[in-house]
């Protein structure tokens, strides 16, 4: 469906940050996903209209990047399998997630599960992200508990510090003070892309 006035206002707020409208295509694709819960043809048409690109050009860009997804559940669980996580049991974490959810990597049920390459949490391996909010030092048992929580509680948003406290262990470094904001769904929680939720 076409964007409401709030989404259009956010789009304009994003576009003015760049010297050329086309440079806003990446944040606008996130905005489109936040509006529809996933990337849709209608969303890409809106992005095309706002950036002065053709829908085909927008699709060409969207299909290049792994974080623009045509199919998504309520939440996205990404398990890292790159070398540092591999060395410390990332494969077992992925197996636990698949077993607990019954969802294979790259597939979507109530939530989406994927195996991903390095998320930059190598000192806290193995690492998992939920809606791109990081959890470090995750054991297979913790990964199961995390998935159960997502499936049973169906939280409206996820906060990285809470996830880390409940389901994480060893961290790459001291994160410093906790942040009370998190992601409303499987889009990076970065304003004004429209996905930050939570609050004090």
């Amino acid at each position: 469906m076409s964007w409401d006035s709030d989404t259009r206002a956010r789009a304009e707020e994003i576009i003015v940050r760049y010297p050329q409208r086309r440079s806003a295509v990446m944040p606008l694709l996130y905005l489109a996903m936040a509006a529809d819960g996933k990337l849709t043809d209608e969303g890409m048409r809106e992005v095309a209209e706002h950036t002065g690109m053709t829908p085909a050009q927008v699709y060409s860009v969207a299909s290049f990047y792994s974080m623009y997804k045509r199919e998504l559940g309520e939440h996205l669980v990404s398990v890292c399998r790159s070398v540092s996580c591999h060395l410390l049991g990332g494969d077992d974490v992925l197996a636990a997630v698949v077993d607990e959810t019954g969802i294979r990597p790259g597939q979507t049920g109530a939530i989406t599960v994927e195996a991903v390459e390095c998320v930059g949490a190598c000192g806290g391996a193995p690492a998992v992200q939920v809606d791109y909010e990081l959890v470090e030092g995750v054991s297979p048992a913790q990964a199961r508990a995390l998935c159960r929580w997502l499936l049973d509680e169906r939280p409206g948003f996820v906060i990285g510090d809470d996830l880390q406290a409940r389901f994480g262990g060893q961290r790459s470094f001291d994160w410093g003070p906790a942040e009370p904001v998190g992601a409303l769904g499987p889009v990076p929680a970065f304003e004004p892309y429209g996905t930050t939720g939570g609050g004090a």
Partner: protein
Amino acid sequence: MTDSILFARMEAHPADSHTLARYEATGGYAALRKALAMPPEEVIAEVKASNIRGRGGAGFPTGVKWGFLPPDIRPRYLVVNADESEPGTFKDRQLLERDPHQLVEGIVISAYALDVEHAFVYVRGEYPRPARRLQRAVDEARAAGYLGRDVLGTGRNIEITVHLGAGAYICGEETALLNSLEGKRGEPRIKPPFPAIAGLYAKPTIVNNVETLSNVPWIVANGGAAYDAIGPEGSRGTRLFSLSGHVERPGNYEIVMGMSWRDLIFGLGGGIRSGKQLKCWIPGGASAPWFVPALHLDEPVTIDDTGRLGSMLGSGAVVVMDETTNVVAAALSVVRFFAHESCGECTPCREGTSWLQRILERILGGAGRPADLDLLLDVSDNISPGLRWPPAMTTICPLGPSVVSPITSIMSHFRDEVAAMIPGAVTAGV
């Protein structure tokens, strides 16, 4: 002797090192005031005199890069590469989350020196928390007059846009990053022209890493000569290393280069977990050829020594593997990464990375063939002819040759171990 430049504030003030109040209370933005009172050429001269080399991977001298800008073309752009995605690397994440004003000040000083009015920070999409911290710092700095229109009353306008990537390692390659920032697919460009001549929107552009620019406030505050006095020649200043894998104390460490690998892994890193023996390590990110204790443990950790020994410090990611590591499985993890992240533009990389992945998968699955030992090297040779270091290129960017590093590493140091996994393959009889 100075051994902490970048991490000093966050270590002394863990509760609020990311805030403007703490940054100012610990001397922050004094370097900016100092720089704004200097002619821009003098600021550039200090950075040149520091002899700092880029911290993103290639190790190119920052001041020299800055000198490539043509004098008479405007606008110029400054682009900060925060697309930290090299497996094993998590140092820029800590700088962004824990001391974002240090980077913002470095950007504003550099933008002033380079006569740039608009800087961009390209943060990888999987880093929303670091991006939020950075955006907040940018907003705070703008409200305080350090950024935006008429910076500190100088009449200069300097703006920073924080941009989020979307899950493509290739966008850490500077020309792919520029294409991505222009709203295109993140495919690398053929060089030349280099970005300093024709970069973002075909305008002169400097692309620097987060860690590189985070050093700029200290360099301006203390002088390039003071920075140049730290560490061995060719590896000046402090440097962040990300330790991970089977090491007792993983984490980011800021060190003066020149210490031995033994001191880094066994001293700072606390040695190998569970009393195991060290088998090998990756000295500079997934793209780097591996080191082994018998040959490399007492060598100095410097950019040039590591290059002389056939590898690189790259992004400063040290991935440690103990004696229980299945090196074929570890190499497969690295190779699969490059196969997944190949943008598909160049045939040797697009095809070669996935061929190597399939060969390693069948060896690991017990279905390897004796000829696979030579085939691994033959495919690698087609991607990077001669299998030498630094690698020869058949591709536009270095991603292709990077996939060769784990292959040559296991074949030169652990060939018998690979052969032992292949039914009917002949080992050297160890």
